[in-house]
């Protein structure tokens, strides 16, 4: 019996060691990138890829990138979009979800199926036509172009289904009572459904923040003025401006990833729970 126990224990220890090294492999690039963004050029090119302590600690790279492009403006733009768009997405998706979950009207099933079927159409199909629509509407190079299209993209359509599922699980008695008392549907939606759906709404908000912050292709083809670019696009422009200067690229990358990492670490339960329950939420 003791032999088997020992074998299991050794197996466990080996497993944990392997997992630990795997964790290291996953996190190390981030640790290296962030710490290296605070190094001097000399230390960066000193040739030791395991050197993670900036010595001396310097903001040189950050100062340099600010001279080339308005990086902090990029970050601000992204912050603005990543907080505004999720709110609007939630507003639109939750209203539609409530309608699908609770309200009866002719054509409801047709529209529901229509939404459902387009989830299977990949985003690259609508890329070019939407770009041309932006030109026609004179929305190119305006924030509207970055705010409105995400309200109807695949992710928000999925949000409708996600929220509908959640709303269906809210006990109907509350709403029925309110309606009999004369509440309008909007009041029911605002005062009963939404407050009872906070975890679902929070989940969407957090995942959406991440998606909007990481937006790249659409903003790149739709925006032209530097000052309006979100961070990921700005980072790509930084690369073409700076080309191989390691410290500066890493400083830009750090600005581009730190917010998502912080949000992820604080709210990891939301990310992981959504994936485990619905399968969606990955890249």
């Amino acid at each position, binding site marked *: 019996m003791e032999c088997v126990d020992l074998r299991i224990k050794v197996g466990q220890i080996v497993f944990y060691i392997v997992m630990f090294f795997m964790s290291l492999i996953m996190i190390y690039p981030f640790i290296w990138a962030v710490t290296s963004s605070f190094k001097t050029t000399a230390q960066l090119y000193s040739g030791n890829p395991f050197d993670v302590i900036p010595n001396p600690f310097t903001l040189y790279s950050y100062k340099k990138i600010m001279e080339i492009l308005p990086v902090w403006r990029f970050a601000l733009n992204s912050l603005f979009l990543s907080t505004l768009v999720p709110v609007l997405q939630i507003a*639109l998706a939750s209203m*539609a979800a409530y309608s699908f979950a609770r309200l009866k009207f002719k054509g409801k099933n047709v529209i529901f199926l229509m939404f459902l079927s387009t989830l299977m159409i990949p985003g690259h199909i609508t890329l*070019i036509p939407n*770009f041309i629509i932006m030109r026609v509407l004179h929305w190119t190079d305006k924030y509207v172009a970055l705010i409105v299209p995400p309200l109807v993209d695949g992710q928000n359509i999925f949000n409708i289904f996600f929220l509908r599922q959640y709303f269906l699980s809210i006990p109907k008695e509350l709403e029925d009572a309110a309606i009999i008392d004369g509440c309008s549907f909007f009041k029911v939606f605002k005062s009963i459904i939404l407050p009872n759906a906070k975890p679902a709404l929070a989940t969407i908000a957090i995942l959406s923040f991440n998606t909007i*912050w990481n937006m790249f292709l659409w903003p790149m083809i739709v925006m032209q003025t530097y000052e309006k670019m979100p961070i990921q696009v700005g980072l790509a422009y930084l690369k073409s401006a700076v080309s191989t200067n390691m410290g500066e690229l890493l400083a830009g990358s750090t600005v581009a990833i730190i917010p998502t990492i912080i949000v992820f670490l604080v709210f990891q339960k939301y990310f*992981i729970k959504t994936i*485990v329950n619905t399968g969606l939420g990955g890249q």
Partner: protein
Amino acid sequence: MMPANEIKVADNATPRKRIGRITMAKREAIAGWLFILPILLGFLVFVVFSIIYSMVISLTKWDLLTPPVFIGLENYAEVFRDERFYQVLYNTVYFVIGIVPTVLILSMLIAIGLNNKVNKMANFFKISFFMPNITSSIAVGMIWLWIFNPTDGLINTILFSLGISNVPQWLQSTTWAKPALIIMRVWQMWGYYMLLFLAGLQTIPQTLYEAAEVDGARKWKKFRYITLPMLSNTTFFVTIMLIIGAFNIFEAIFVMTEGRPAGTTNTLLYYIYYNGFQTYRMGYASALAWILFAILFALTLIQFRLRRKSEDM
């Protein structure tokens, strides 16, 4: 005679209360439409109309400077004559073959290893494995540019220190550029699929394993006859998503190679972007987009058929 405002409620029926001349049911219908209206309008324009518009554009020759010219199916014919299309197709398939089995096996095995371990260490592992997934591929791509740097990047420095002098030139080599991208994407993606497998594993009842233990089954048998079959739904879902994901690599290519060297990392999606937004061939790019859709659709259909066949067996 009942008072006009008395409510008759039957089971699940909407109360037939009359307010003015509008029945409750009508109010509900109006509300139903109003709640949907904002997103429906946007949807009709940016999804429904867009999809149809895309089909129309694919039948034209359009550079955005001059008006579009209708050329019928000429774009599609040209795609099949385009040498670069076949190279792009080959590259894309290469990525699929490199990524799908690797991530499948890696994420499944580690999910099994981490299954039912609820301690803080296991949680730390899960978080660290999934973290690369939520970061932007543009920023991550920049970091991996350094990792793959042929002279002082992380990987080659390690290889040098192991005594290997003939190291791959990674993103600058026509042989190693695709494997480099595969490594980077596997690194970034597998954590998410591991979580999917963890979810799938949670649905397997412990009693099955206990019964097997009573029968004297050891690890391999348990895996082969319980875990693997019970995971078949998850595996199926993961495989489909992985294939689509492998087709969708874009940002990594954009920031790390731009399709180079010599077009060896050019994929269908990147080629669509190149045609649409670098050479402004809107019609051709749209045709490519529909071909990509057709390929993905066909692949998904095939997988569903295969699955149904295997379930019938």
